[in-house]
C-alpha cells in the first residue's frame, strides 16, 4: 500500500477545488458533520424541491479525504430524488462496512473512493459528509 493508493489524482483534484463548496443562503436542510477524533467540521446544506435534492453545498474544515468525499457526494446527489439519494448513501456507506452487499452501479464516480477502506484510520474521513446526509434524510420516506 502506498500513498498514491490513498491520495489518488481523483481525490486530490476533488479536494483542491469543488463546484459544490459553499453554503446555501436559505437551505431547507442543514447539518453539521463532525469528526470527533480530529475536530474537523463540515456543514452540509440542501434545497429540496418536489421530492428532489435540487441543490447541495458543503463548507468547513477537513482533510483532503473528507473534502474530496464531500465533493463527490454533492456532485452525485444533486438533482437526485430523495429516495434515490438515500439508496446511494446507504450503498456508499456499505462500502466501508463488513459483509455488506453493495450495488456499485449506483455509486458512479464515488466508487473511486472505495480504496480508502484499506486505510482504517481514514474511514471516518471518507464517510463524514455521507453520515451527515444520512441523518438529514432519515425522516423522509
Amino acid at each position, binding site marked *: 500500500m502506498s500513498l498514491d493508493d490513498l*491520495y489518488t489524482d481523483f481525490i486530490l483534484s476533488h479536494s483542491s477545488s469543488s463546484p459544490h463548496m459553499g453554503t446555501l443562503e436559505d437551505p431547507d436542510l442543514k447539518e453539521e458533520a463532525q469528526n470527533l477524533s480530529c475536530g474537523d467540521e463540515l456543514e452540509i446544506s440542501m434545497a429540496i424541491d418536489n421530492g428532489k435534492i435540487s441543490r447541495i453545498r458543503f463548507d468547513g474544515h477537513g482533510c483532503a479525504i473528507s473534502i474530496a468525499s464531500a465533493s463527490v457526494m454533492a456532485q452525485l446527489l444533486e438533482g437526485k430524488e430523495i429516495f434515490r439519494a438515500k439508496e446511494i448513501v446507504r450503498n456508499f456507506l456499505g462500502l466501508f462496512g463488513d459483509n455488506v452487499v453493495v450495488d456499485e452501479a449506483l455509486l458512479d464516480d464515488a466508487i473511486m473512493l472505495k480504496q480508502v477502506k484499506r486505510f482504517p484510520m481514514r474511514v471516518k474521513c471518507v464517510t463524514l459528509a455521507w453520515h451527515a446526509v444520512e441523518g438529514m434524510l432519515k425522516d423522509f420516506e
Partner: protein
Amino acid sequence: MPLSNNSGLSLAAIKEDFPVFREYPGLVYLDNAATTHKPDAMINTLVRFYTRENSNVHRAVHRLAERATVLFEDARSTVADFVNADPEQVIFTKGTTESLNLLAYSLSLSEEFKTFIVPQFEHHSNFVPWQQMSRRFGKEFIALDIRGTELELDTLEKAISLQKEAFVLAVSGLTNSTGFKLPVRQVVDMVHKNGGIVVIDGAQLIPHEQFDFKKSMVDFLAFSAHKMLGPTGIGALVGKRELLERLTPYAFGGEMIDKVDLCDTTFASIPQRFEAGTPNISGAMGFSSAINYLDGLNRTAVVEHIEKLTSLCHEELSSITGLRILSPGKSHGIVSFVHDSVHPHDLAEFLSQNLDVAIRSGHHCAQPQMMKLGVRSSCRASFYIYNTSEDVEALAKGIRSAVRWFG
C-alpha cells in the same frame, strides 16, 4: 554526557533495548506523548510474572499468592520512591484518567471544596471530570483563561484571590498539546496562600522530570506508566496522606473494605481503600520495571537530551515556509504545529506512509486549547529517550516533501 550510568551507554545502545526498533529499523517514532515504546526488560517482567509469579494479591496464603503480594507491594514502593512519596501515598489506578476521575468524584463529595479551577489548555481527562462533577454536585467550575498556550500567574492569582472558600486547582505539569511547562512551585505557593489545593496532571511531566512529591508540596499527582516505558492500563494517584485519609472512596468492592455488615461498611486504610477489586498486578510489575530502567539512566542527561531535540525541532520547523509552530518558544519534549496548505491528517499520513515517521495529528484531546489557538487540529511531534537528531531531521525533510507533494 552519556545517557546511562552504566559506563557511558550510547544512544544507539538505548535504541537496541527496544524491540520495536528491531522489528521496524526505519521507524522514526515521534508520538511519545501518546505512548512510548517498551524496553525488553519491561516486556520480560510481564512474561516472567505470568510464567512464574501469577496469583491474586492480598488474599490467599499459598506460596504464589505470597510472592505476588510481595512483588506487588514492592512495585508500589518503587513507584513511591520514583517521585519521593511513601508507599501508602501511592494508589494504583488504570492511569492518569482514572486517577483524575477518582479525585474529581471524591473531592466533589467533600463539603470543604466549593470550586474547581482548570486552565483551558488541559487535556480532556483533566477538564471534563471537573466540569461534569461540578455540574452534578453543584460546585463552581472555572475554566481559567490562558494566553495562547500558557497559563499566566497573574490570571491565576486574580481568579484564586476571589475565592472565599477552599478550592481545587487541577493543572497539567506539562501540557500534552503544546509542551508548556508549569512553574509548579510558584503555582503551589500561590494556591496554598489562598486556601486551595493543587492537583497536578503529571501524565507528560513525570516521564520527563525528576519530580519530588514531598518537596513540591503538591497535594495530588496523577500519572500513567505507558507514557514512561511501562504497560498500558496502570498508573498512579499520589496524595498527601492527610488528604487521602479524608477522601471518600470512589469505587467499592473487594479488598477496599474493613468490615461489612448488612447495613453499613467500614473501609480499609489507605491505599487499599481506593483499590477496589483485583488490581492490575502484572501492570504494577511492568510499571516498576519501567522505572528501574529509567533509574538506570542518567536522568539529568536524559532531560538535556530531550530538550536539545525539542529546540532542534523548533529550529528546523521554523525554517519551513507556511508552517506555524503552536508550542511556546521553550516547550518541553513536544512541538505542535500546523501548515497553511496541508491538513494535519494528510501531513501525518504522508509522513507515515512515505517515510515511516510517526507523529500525532488531531485535537490531542484538548479542544478548548485548540479553540484558543484558532485551529481545529494540529500536528504534534513528541520525543523520548530513544529519539535522535536524525529523527528530527527526518521529520523536517518529510514535511518539506509533503508540502511539495500536496502543493
